[in-house]
C-alpha cells in the first residue's frame, strides 16, 4: 500500500531522493573495489585494475545470486558500453577476466571466507561487508573507482491488506528515527543512514561527506534488470564453469 507519510513524522527529514510513495529508503549499499592493503599498496582507482595480468589468480568474484554480483556485472556492462538490454559487453569482459580469477564464492558467506583465508587479494565488494571484516581484523579496504560509486537503496514498505497497517508504519518510522539511525550507523552494524539529521561519521565519510553526496550516487534501473536475473544467472554459470 502507499506509504502514509502523514502518519510518519520522521519521513520529512529524508532528502527527496530517499523518499518514495511506496515506502522510504532506510539505508543504502555502495559497491567498490575491495583489496588487501598489505598486498596491494596503492588503492586501485579503476575497475580495469581487476584485469591487470599482475593479479593473475588473485581476483575474486561472487556468484550472481547476490545483489553484489548483479551490481558488479551491470556496472561493468555500463562502463564497457552496454545497456540493460544488451549484456554482451559485460560477458565479453567477464571472459577476459577469467584467467585472473582465483576463486568464485558460491554465496556471500563463502566469499567472506576467501578474504579471511587470503585466497584473493582484489575483488568487487560492498561497504558493509568490508566494515564487518575490518572489525574482525581481516586486512581489507574498499576503494571507490574513479568512474564513481554505485549503489542501491534498501527500502521498507507496508504490504497491501496488512493486518495492522498503523503498527507497520510505526515500525518503519522507527527505522527513520535519528537516534535509531545513528545507533545502527556505528560498528558493528555500519548501516549507511539516510535521515539527513544524522551526520555521516567514520568510514562512510571517505565515500560521501553529506547526504546530498549520498543521494548523487548512481543506482541501477532495477525495473529493467530484475526480469533478466534468471537469464543472467544461467548465462553467468555457463561462462564461468571450469
Amino acid at each position, binding site marked *: 500500500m502507499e506509504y502514509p507519510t502523514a502518519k510518519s513524522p520522521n519521513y520529512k527529514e529524508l532528502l527527496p531522493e530517499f523518499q518514495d510513495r511506496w515506502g522510504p529508503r532506510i539505508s543504502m549499499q555502495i559497491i567498490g573495489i575491495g583489496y588487501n592493503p598489505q598486498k596491494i599498496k596503492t588503492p586501485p582507482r579503476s575497475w580495469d585494475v581487476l584485469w591487470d595480468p599482475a593479479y593473475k589468480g588473485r581476483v575474486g568474484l561472487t556468484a550472481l545470486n547476490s545483489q553484489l554480483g548483479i551490481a558488479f556485472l551491470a556496472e561493468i556492462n555500463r562502463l564497457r558500453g552496454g545497456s540493460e538490454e544488451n549484456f554482451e559487453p559485460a560477458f565479453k569482459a567477464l571472459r577476459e577476466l577469467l584467467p585472473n580469477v582465483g576463486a568464485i564464492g*558460491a554465496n556471500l558467506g563463502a566469499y567472506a571466507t576467501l578474504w579471511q583465508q587470503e585466497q584473493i587479494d582484489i575483488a568487487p565488494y560492498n561497504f558493509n561487508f568490508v566494515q564487518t571484516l575490518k572489525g574482525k581484523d581481516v586486512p581489507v579496504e574498499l576503494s571507490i573507482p574513479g568512474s564513481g560509486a554505485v549503489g542501491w537503496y534498501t527500502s521498507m514498505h507496508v504490504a497491501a491488506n496488512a493486518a495492522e497497517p498503523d503498527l507497520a508504519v510505526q515500525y518503519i518510522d522507527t527505522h527513520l528515527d535519528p537516534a535509531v539511525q545513528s545507533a545502527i550507523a556505528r560498528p558493528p552494524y555500519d548501516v549507511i543512514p539516510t535521515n539527513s539529521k544524522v551526520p555521516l561519521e567514520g568510514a562512510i565519510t571517505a565515500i560521501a561527506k553529506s547526504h546530498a553526496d549520498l543521494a548523487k550516487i548512481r543506482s541501477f534501473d532495477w525495473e529493467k534488470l530484475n526480469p533478466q536475473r534468471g537469464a543472467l544467472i544461467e548465462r553467468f554459470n555457463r561462462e564461468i564453469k571450469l
Partner: protein
Amino acid sequence: MQEDGLRLVLPLAAVFVGFFVAPLFMLLALSLSREADMHALTLAHYVKFFTDPFNYSILWATLLLGVKATVLCLLFGYPIAWIASRVHARWQTVLLFLVILPIMTSVVVRTFSWIVILGRQGVLNRIAMGLGLTSEPLRLLFTETGVVMVLAQVQMPLMVLPILTVMSKLDPNLADASRVLGAGEWRTLWRVTLPLSLPGVIAGCILTYSASVTAFVTQTLIGGARLVYMPLHIYQQAIGANNWPFAAAISIIFMLAVLCVVAVLNMLMRVTPDHASR
C-alpha cells in the same frame, strides 16, 4: 498375529506417507508444471534438461564425483575398520569414538576446518613448503581433487561403521583356520576376510555414495561456484533464478540417477553369496 503387525506399523507408515511420499509427489507435480502456480502441465523442463549438454554434463560430473569419493573413502575406511575389529576391546572403543566424532560436529564446521587446512596459508601448504616439497602453495581448494579429498574424510564414518559391524560378527575361527592351513596374513585377508566382509563394504559404499553426491555444503564451500554439481545447480535454479519447476525437474532426474546407482550396488550385494552362513 498378521493384523497386529499391520496395526503396529501403521503410525510409522502414516508419517512416512505424509512427510516423505506426499511431498515427493508434490515435487513431481511441480516439475511437470509450466509455472510455479501449477496450472498447466508440460514436459518442457525435462526436455530442456536433456537437450542441453550443459545440464547433463553436470549430472555426469556429479555421479563421477561420487564414485571417486567413495573409492577414496573405501581405500582409507577399510583398513580402519579392519584394525578396529582386531584390537583389544578398550582400544576399539577409543577408535570407534574417533570414527564417530566427526558426525557429532556439524558438517559446516568440518568443511570450514578443511578450508583452513587446504588454503594457501593452511596447515597442509605450510608443512609441504616447510619440508621443501614445493615452492608455490599447492592449489587444492576450488579443485575437484580437493572436493574428493574432503568428501572422503567427511563421509568416512558412513563407510567405516557398516564394514566394522560386519567384520566384528565374523567368526574368528575362520581366520584361525586359514592360518592353521598355512595362509599368511595377506592371503587370509584377501581370500577369507575380504569376501566375507563384502556385504558391509557394499552397504558402506551405498551410504557414502548417496551422501557424497548430495553433499551441497562440502561441494560448494570447497569447490566454489565454478565447480557446478547437481546440488548447486538445483539451488541456483530454485533460489537464484526462481525457476522452481525446472529446479524440481532437475531434482527428480538427479534422484532417479542416484537411485539407479544405488540399485546396481544393491544388486551386487544380493548376488554375492552369503559366505558367512555356510
